[in-house]
Every structure is written in C-alpha cells, then in structure tokens.
C-alpha cells in the first residue's frame, strides 16, 4: 500500500514515518509540508492512502480533500478532536487518529483500511441486490440474489450506510443490502440498537470502548454524534 504524509510539522512527519516502517506492506512514498505541493504530486501519481493533518498552512484539510479529483483513502491525523465528526462525513476519510500517534492505534487503523478495501471488492462482486428486508422474531432475513439469508439479530455489530446500500456487519460476515437506514432501524429492536450517527447504527451490547466522540466495536471505529452522545451515555450501565 503506497501512502503519502501531508503535515507541516516535521517532527510528526518523522514520527509517523518511523511508525509506518513498523507496518508491513505500508510504504511512505512521499511527504509534503503543504497541500499545494501534495496536489501537484497527486495530479501525476496515484496513491492508496493519505495521512492528512487538518491544520495546513495553505488549506484546511477539508479544503484539500475537495480539490482532489480521485480521492484515495484518507486517515486524518490531528489533535483537534472537534474535527472528528466533520471528518467522518467524508466518504474517503476512513479514520481519525489523534496526535500523538501510537503504533497500536496506527496498526488498528491500517487493519480497518485493509478491511474496507476488501469490503469494496465484495461490493463490486455482489451484483444486484433486492431491497427487501424481512423480520422474523429475533432473526432478520435479507434478500440477496433472490435468496433469503437469515441473520441472528443479536450477532449484528453495526450497520453502516453507504449510498443506497447498507452494510450489515455481523460477528463473522458482512452483508450488503439495498435498503435504507430507516428501513433497517425499524426492523431492529430499540432495546439493543441505536443510531449513533447519520450513517451508523450500533448494537449497544457490542460496544468495547467509547473515547470522546468515537465508539470502538471490535476493529470498527464508529463516529458518535455529539447530539446523540448524552442519550447513549444514559443507556449504558456506568459505574
């Protein structure tokens, strides 16, 4: 996987490069102190991933993203947690890592990215889906290629909206169905499931960790809407 780093702080560029050296198959092919130079480079070269600091001297990170014709995957690196929610509104942004970056957190992020590449391959192979979701007691039947496939509702970890489709991520499998978030939310029990962001529904029983405005479920990093956070916290059994 070829990646570039855009950050005007040389110290963090050096640190991030050093950490990336520890991850197999991740090659930092170039680093840039400003967005303008990075744009020139990206007009000539394709990369798989950009590590992007949001505080750049010439552009904000978001302005930079909007200039890109072909958007590679982006991992935002910043110490400004207020940007996290906005960051997750961009499809190309796959993760948000706070400075100072830790190797364990970086590895988690790269694993998540590799998984998203795999999911996209799966989506491309999946063919046509029928937008019909059936609920039978504690199971959910999804209609894929004219087959009704049973899912145990309690095995669902998260549901992610991607355009006209939803990803249903269970303990062992991911399913892609042509359906809306509203439709699936109506089929899931309110006692266990909650919409925590406009594109994410989570199974409350599967939460591993909540940190600021991010929820961790297994390897999934889920943005938590500020408006929903108090409601979520009130539903947790907190000591």
């Amino acid at each position, binding site marked *: 996987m070829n990646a570039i780093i855009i950050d005007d*702080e*040389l*110290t*963090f560029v*050096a640190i991030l490069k*050093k950490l990336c050296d520890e991850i197999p198959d991740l090659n930092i092919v170039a680093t840039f102190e400003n967005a303008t130079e990075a744009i020139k480079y990206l007009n000539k070269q394709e990369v798989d991933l950009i590590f992007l600091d949001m505080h750049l001297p010439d552009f904000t990170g978001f302005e930079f993203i909007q200039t890109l014709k072909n958007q590679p995957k982006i991992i935002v690196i910043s*110490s400004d947690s207020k940007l996290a929610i906005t960051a997750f509104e961009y499809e190309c942004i796959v993760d948000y890592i706070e400075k*100072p970056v830790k190797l364990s957190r970086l590895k988690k992020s790269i694993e998540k990215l590799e998984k998203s590449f795999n999911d996209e391959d799966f989506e491309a192979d999946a063919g046509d889906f029928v937008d019909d979701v059936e609920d039978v007691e504690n199971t959910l039947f999804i209609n894929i290629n004219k087959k009704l496939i049973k899912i145990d509702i309690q095995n669902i970890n998260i549901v992610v909206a991607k355009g006209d489709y939803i990803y249903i991520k269970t303990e062992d499998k991911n399913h892609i169905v042509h359906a809306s978030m509203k439709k699936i939310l109506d089929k899931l029990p309110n006692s266990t499931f909650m919409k925590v962001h406009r594109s994410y529904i989570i199974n409350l029983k599967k939460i591993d960790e909540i940190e600021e405005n991010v929820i961790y479920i297994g390897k999934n990093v889920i943005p938590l809407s500020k408006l929903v956070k108090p409601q979520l916290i009130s539903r947790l059994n907190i000591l």
Partner: protein
Amino acid sequence: MGEPNLDYIRKIANGDQEFFNKLIKIVKFELPNEVDSYNDYMQRGCFMQAANIVHKIKHKAIILSWEDAYQIAATHEENLKAGSNVDQASFDNYLTAMLRYISTI
C-alpha cells in the same frame, strides 16, 4: 509545573539511536522557529495566527512529555481563538523553559 523529559522520544525511537538523534535535531530546529513566529504574531495582536502556532507548540509539549505545558498551551490556544490573551504570561514562562531545555539536549 513539572518539567520536560525525553521519555516519549525514547519510546518512539525504541533503541534506534539514529532516529533518536534525528528527532531531537528536528525539535531543536522547529521549536525556536515556532516560538519566533508566535512572538511575532502576539506583538502584532494577530491572535488567530498565534493560536495556530500555539497548536504546533502544544505538540512539542507532547514530544517533550510535558503534560503541564500541553495543558496551558491547549487553554491558551482556545483563549486566543476567542480573542483573549489571558494566559500569555503563564504560557510564555513554559515557552522559556522549553527553549532552555532543548538547548541542553
């Protein structure tokens, strides 16, 4: 007030002496430049631009494992964005201490 140290840099270097030296060299180069820019913006009353520099200096506090300096930088950054320099004197004391420290490493 605590004091800075090299624990974070040592941890990141993980025994790589070349990288350790390189990182210290970068910090010794970057921090004084950032402090000069910060002082310049403050003298001109450009609080928003100064806040952007404090944002970077805040990261140097992380690299020098100095929690207290990080906290005052974070507060000063937010206040500057809101148009207040109420923490300037306190922050400047930390800046002086940081510059003094990096001159010894």
